[in-house]
């Protein structure tokens, strides 16, 4: 039961990073890939079907953390309160921009909403960088590792967004933004590679990660470097959809497998209660997610509710 529940938490966290990484990352890159008003509308149209279905993974992760791992949650909140507040604020601002953008047909209104989407996206990515670093070092530490780790995570979000944009922004007449996103994958992967190596080196300086899972860390670091190296080399954007997914999953796996977090045994009744109510709903959850991602593979031809 404990292993299964931990796996569930890990699934929600990594699933959130992989899925929401796309739309958060594309929000960050909006100034680069959406230069004209029509391009910005397409960027939001690319984000909109996904953010509804991807942010629920984080909500579910928070729910599992509160209900099945309260001791872990208590530790995380106590250590990282300001960063978590920043994450929540960035999330709120970005979503408010996405929900409001198409509501008023005025350029200044859209400019404010686009600003909220971009600023919120960067805040969310940076907050995740600080959360990953803070969990690995066992609390917020002003160290070279924190800086390199946070920067690397921000870079991975942007890379994920670029890979997503390179596919989703391809359209009949406005291919500029898809090209811009595709061109961004290689420099972002190179920057990510540099930052990942810097973080690995800084891990041995004071203020580096605590916790002893050396073998796991080594394997995860090798996976990250391999994924980023593939994208920074000759293939460029071609396989970046997959390599960026692997790359952004790594920080989540680091937190799950290598961070030194207090975990208490889950009382049997609570575990059974949660799993018994969850199990019958799993097929509905899977069907909904797969259906939405399949249905919206092609951008909507008509303007929708969001853009």
């Amino acid at each position, binding site marked *: 039961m404990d292993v299964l529940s931990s796996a569930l938490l890990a699934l929600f966290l990594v699933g959130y990073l992989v899925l929401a990484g796309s739309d958060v990352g594309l929000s960050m890159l909006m100034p680069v890939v959406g230069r004209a008003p029509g391009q910005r509308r397409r960027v939001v149209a690319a984000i909109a079907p996904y953010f509804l279905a991807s942010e629920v993974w984080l909500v579910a992760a928070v729910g599992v953390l509160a209900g099945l791992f309260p*001791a872990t949650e208590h530790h995380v909140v106590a250590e990282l309160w300001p960063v978590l507040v920043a994450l929540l604020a960035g999330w709120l601002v970005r979503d408010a921009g996405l929900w409001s953008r198409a509501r008023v047909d005025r350029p200044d209104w859209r400019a404010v909403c686009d600003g909220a989407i971009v600023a919120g996206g960067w805040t969310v990515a940076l907050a995740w960088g600080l959360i990953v670093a803070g969990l690995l070092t066992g609390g917020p530490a002003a160290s070279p590792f924190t800086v390199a780790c946070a920067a690397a995570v921000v870079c991975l979000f942007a890379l994920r967004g670029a890979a997503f944009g390179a596919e989703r922004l391809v359209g009949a007449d406005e291919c500029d933004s898809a090209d811009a996103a595709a061109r961004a994958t290689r420099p972002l992967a190179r920057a990510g590679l540099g930052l990942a190596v810097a973080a690995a080196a800084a891990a041995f300086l004071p203020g580096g990660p605590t916790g002893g899972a050396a073998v796991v860390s080594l394997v995860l670091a090798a996976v990250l470097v391999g994924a980023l190296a593939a994208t920074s080399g000759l293939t460029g954007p071609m396989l970046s959809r997959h390599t960026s997914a692997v790359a952004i999953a790594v920080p989540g796996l680091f937190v799950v497998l290598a961070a030194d977090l207090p975990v208490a045994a889950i009382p049997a009744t609570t575990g059974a209660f949660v799993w018994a109510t969850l199990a019958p709903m799993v097929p509905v959850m899977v069907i*909904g997610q797969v259906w939405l991602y399949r249905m919206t593979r092609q951008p909507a031809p008509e303007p929708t509710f969001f853009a």
Partner: protein
Amino acid sequence: MLEDPLLLARLQFALTAATHYMFVALTLGLAPYILVTQAVAAVRGDRSRMAAVRFWGGLYLVNYGMGVLSGLVMELQLGLNWSGLQEVFGYSFAAPIAVETMTAFFVESTFLGLWVFGWDRMGRWAHLACFAVVTTTAYASAWWVLVANGFLRHPVGFETVDGVAHLTDPAALLANPASALAFGHVVTGAALVGALVIAAVSAYHLMRRDDPHGIFRRGVRYAAITVTLLVLPVAAFGGTQFEYFGEAPPTSGLTYSAEEIAAIEATAEGGAAEVAGLAGETTMVLAWTLIALMGPLMLLAWPFGGLDRWRWFLAPLVAAPLLPYAASAGGWVFRETGRQPWVVVHHLTTADAMTPLSPGTALVSFSLFTGAFAVLASVTCWLLVRYARLGPDGGPLAERGETASEEPAAPVHPF
């Protein structure tokens, strides 16, 4: 006041929860009406009813967005500002919330996405099924949240092991009368909110004789029937809860002895919370009395054609939604202040539940989220009123392109 983190954290949570519920009540109240309208439209292939679904669905989405944003902040705030509650009651109070996030909200948000983006991409039955899932999970969500909330008021089904509450009896948790009665009260109350919002929007357009699809004559009739039928059940579900107020929960004594409980309750300052609770109760009862008069009056006007024609009769209906909203806010203030000084009655005080925060950080968090909420809630209310006044042709889901169809419509993708 600004030097007291506890007061700020309490006020912040009260404002977040109140904002959240204002939008949730309309979500719950509109969803079944939209679902039934869409089902009738699908069965009959009725375009005018589909126009109604697009109109009310547009208002539903604008409202839902704010409900989600405030819900996210509320859930994360529980962990951030009230970590003492999570530490002691995580396995009992937070377990239903964990179930809610996965089985209700996760599914609701995904299927709402399917509903929004599936208008032109899926068949009418699949599209209807998506909204049926959205409606069901919206109510499931309310049920699980009230299971958690009912536990605070009437904690049951746990034992304390090393200072941590362990769930022992999930059946007692689910059958908690403080949850079941509150769910009945919230469902019927939300139906009144939905009905009176529908009545107000309908009355506004009927006064202008602007109802080409018959959306508003059907809306005002739905409101007349719903308000008449549900005004007594909402009071019955609410009134039955009074017997649990002030009564010791069955688990009383597990954490503190009777003397300690009496001492804690004696030293607690009644003050502002007590006054707010009394004001909430008065508002709730007063608003309910006025709503109770409205249903029969609307039924009386119906056979004379008054629901469609009498402008003097329809004009006051435009302001009617203020009543159920005031009653809901008052009811929640009454319920939640009535629990003080406890967060979990007879087990954990509100003061002990709070995350230790310095006055500065508490003030920053309070200003940040209260300010953001004030802006977002105002914008959402303004948008709702604006779309309600624009009518079926100006809504965010209204069919586009019929007037300017020089080019053939873009092909619909077949998956």
